[in-house]
């Protein structure tokens, strides 16, 4: 019956379905664009599935000069345990910042000449924090499997070096220490440093080549001065991948390595108190609660950009969704009008069906099924149209837009449930539009409807 009616009324129903399809296409397109932007900005630029908390910074001013060395505040293991116990928290990973001066140089294999920094910033993270990230292998403390006893680097087989802590006569041969860099640093290098120095960009295609490149890192000495304790020495560091968990500017090494070196150059306190903690969230909604708990223990979020970007994206997305909702509302009104006309035109038919044994709810169901089919087809067409529009938009963006930091391959994200959402929303709006006419059809007085034509 519904199939026959679809064929009979295809003109008006196509018009009604077209309205729904346009509304759903707009809704799905905008949502996919929003999710895509969120994926790039919050997934790669400012990850929001985690919160990094660090001790509140206080300036001791001149007093610090009188007191000698400034001891930065740290995060104790008891606070790590408290954060770990909070709802919505999956893991807590402490981070250790380098507490000693260092420098680095290298890159001959990749760039054709040595580059370096006279002031190296470094971070230590738990290897578990990046476990499972694609393209990252071997991010473990090389001293988990130390080599033979050595006194100098020539005692070890290249590319190994002799990891001999300050003041000790002997050390152990060690693989180069694995290091991660951030995507942000790669982008910064490609778009600022490389052009300024005539170096090739380390684009996506070269990243794989870059992995395995070894740098020399000097510990205990930098442009700004030497470490108060420990000896100046050179270690080898090998680049093993790009990670969102890496420090924005600098190298990120396994936490146990940094802990050892901090102890060597800055004492036990620098090795036992963490510089920050990364709290991974199983529920992104728990972020504000975690920040609140951190605040109670003297910690502040290290970076509020993610939150700001999230608010911005949500705001823009809400506006776009509002536009789509208006289109859908108009489509629903169009459906209501179409079905109202349908019911008015078919009054005698409804009366006849009632005479033949149809119940009032049969009539209501008949119209609602029609609306459901119109909605489902309109929703499917609209969702597919949105996907096609996204493909075209991505293609034009790839061709027309200049390269820029974090330029994604696709500006859109189409999770499976978005397809479902498009169709479900279309059905809901179509049903909402047809509800009034369907109710009216159910209330049609069959005797009067039949006598009108009889």
């Amino acid at each position, binding site marked *: *019956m519904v199939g*026959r009616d679809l064929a*009979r009324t295809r003109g008006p129903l196509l018009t009604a379905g077209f309205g729904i399809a346009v509304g759903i296409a707009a809704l799905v397109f905008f949502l996919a664009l929003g999710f895509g932007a969120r994926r790039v900005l919050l997934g790669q630029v400012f990850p929001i599935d985690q919160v990094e908390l660090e001790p509140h910074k206080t300036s001791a001013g001149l007093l610090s000069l009188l007191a000698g060395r400034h001891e930065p505040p740290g995060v104790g293991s008891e606070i790590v345990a408290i954060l770990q116990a909070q709802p919505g928290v999956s893991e807590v990973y402490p981070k250790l910042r380098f507490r000693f001066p260092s420098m680095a140089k290298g890159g001959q294999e990749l760039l054709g000449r040595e580059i370096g920094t006279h002031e190296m910033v470094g971070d230590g993270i738990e290897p578990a924090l990046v476990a499972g990230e694609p393209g990252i292998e071997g991010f473990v403390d090389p001293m988990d499997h130390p080599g033979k006893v050595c006194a100098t680097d020539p005692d070890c087989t290249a590319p190994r070096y002799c990891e001999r802590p300050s003041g000790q006569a002997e050390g152990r041969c060690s693989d180069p220490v694995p290091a991660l860099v951030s995507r942000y640093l790669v982008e910064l290098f490609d778009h600022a440093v490389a052009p300024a120095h005539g170096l090739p960009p380390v684009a996506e295609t070269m990243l794989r080549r870059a992995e395995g490149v070894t740098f020399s890192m000097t510990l205990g000495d930098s442009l700004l001065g030497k470490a108060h304790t420990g000896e100046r020495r050179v270690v080898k560091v090998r680049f093993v991948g790009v990670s969102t968990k890496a420090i924005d500017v600098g190298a990120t090494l396994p936490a146990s390595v940094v802990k050892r070196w901090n102890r060597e150059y800055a004492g036990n306190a620098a090795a036992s108190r963490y510089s920050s903690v990364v709290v991974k969230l199983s529920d992104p909604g728990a972020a504000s609660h975690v920040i609140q708990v951190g605040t109670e223990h003297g910690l502040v979020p290290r970076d509020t950009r993610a939150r700001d970007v999230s608010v911005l994206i949500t705001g823009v997305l809400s506006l776009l969704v509002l536009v789509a909702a208006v289109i859908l509302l108009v489509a629903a009104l169009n459906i209501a009008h179409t079905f109202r006309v349908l019911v008015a035109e078919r009054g*005698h*038919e409804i*009366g*006849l*069906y*009632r*005479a*033949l*044994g*149809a*119940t*009032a*709810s*049969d009539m209501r169901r008949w119209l609602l099924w029609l609306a459901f089919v119109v909605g489902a087809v309109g929703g499917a067409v609209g969702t597919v149209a949105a996907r096609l529009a996204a493909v075209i938009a991505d293609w034009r963006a790839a061709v027309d837009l200049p390269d820029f930091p974090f330029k994604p391959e696709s500006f859109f994200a189409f999770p499976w449930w978005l397809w479902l959402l498009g169709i479900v929303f279309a059905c809901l709006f179509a049903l909402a539009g047809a509800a009034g006419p369907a109710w009216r059809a159910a209330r049609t*007085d*069959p*005797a*009067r409807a*039949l*006598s009108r*034509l*009889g």
Partner: protein
Amino acid sequence: MTPIDPSPSAEPAVEDRLVVEARGLTRVYGDGDGAVRAVDHADLTVRAREILLIFGPSGCGKSTLLGLLGGLDRDYAGTLRLFGHDASRLPDAELSRLRGQRIGFVFQSFHLLGHLDALDNVAAPSLFCPGPPGNLTPRERGLAALERVGLADRAGMMPAELSGGQRQRVAIARALLNEPELLLCDEPTGNLDRDTGAQIIELFGALHAELGMTMVVVTHEDRLATLTHRKLFMLDGRVIDEEAE
């Protein structure tokens, strides 16, 4: 409310069973000074297998009364019992089921669905009500009904391709699809020429003889009186006289 059993209940003598029983049946359209009593305190009974003819001039309330008897119009005063059930107490679903399975309608203007061929028109009631028990599909039953009215060879034709008499035969076949116990006919020959009307009257006679169904026929066609067991006369909404053969 306990659901009714739409199947005929076993009773001692079929002819004695009351199919329709109306007491003080009143239908008023509008209210206040403009109110029109289309049916005014009508009392009538219809027994199983009898043919009741309702006569009266145009606008006397015959069709309105038929709509009430068929349960199409529920906005009435008085009491109406259909197959022993108080129609006013039946919920819409039960009354619809009763209508679909035990009552057939034939209308003056046929009320065929223009987008369906003759066979699909005849099978239309099966969209809403299961037919009598048996192995036949609705279309097979529809074909049998068309055969009964002599139109099996027109099964695939659209209503627009049929003559007036053929359309009415299709409508009668549709009314017969579920083998109803009560056939309500509203001016069945009203839109037909004299010869075609005579054929339809003849068909009614044959169907009654063959199937023994109860029939209530609203008409002002004298020739139908040849079929009739009882005649009932209406004027201004009231039943003013009754004749029995």
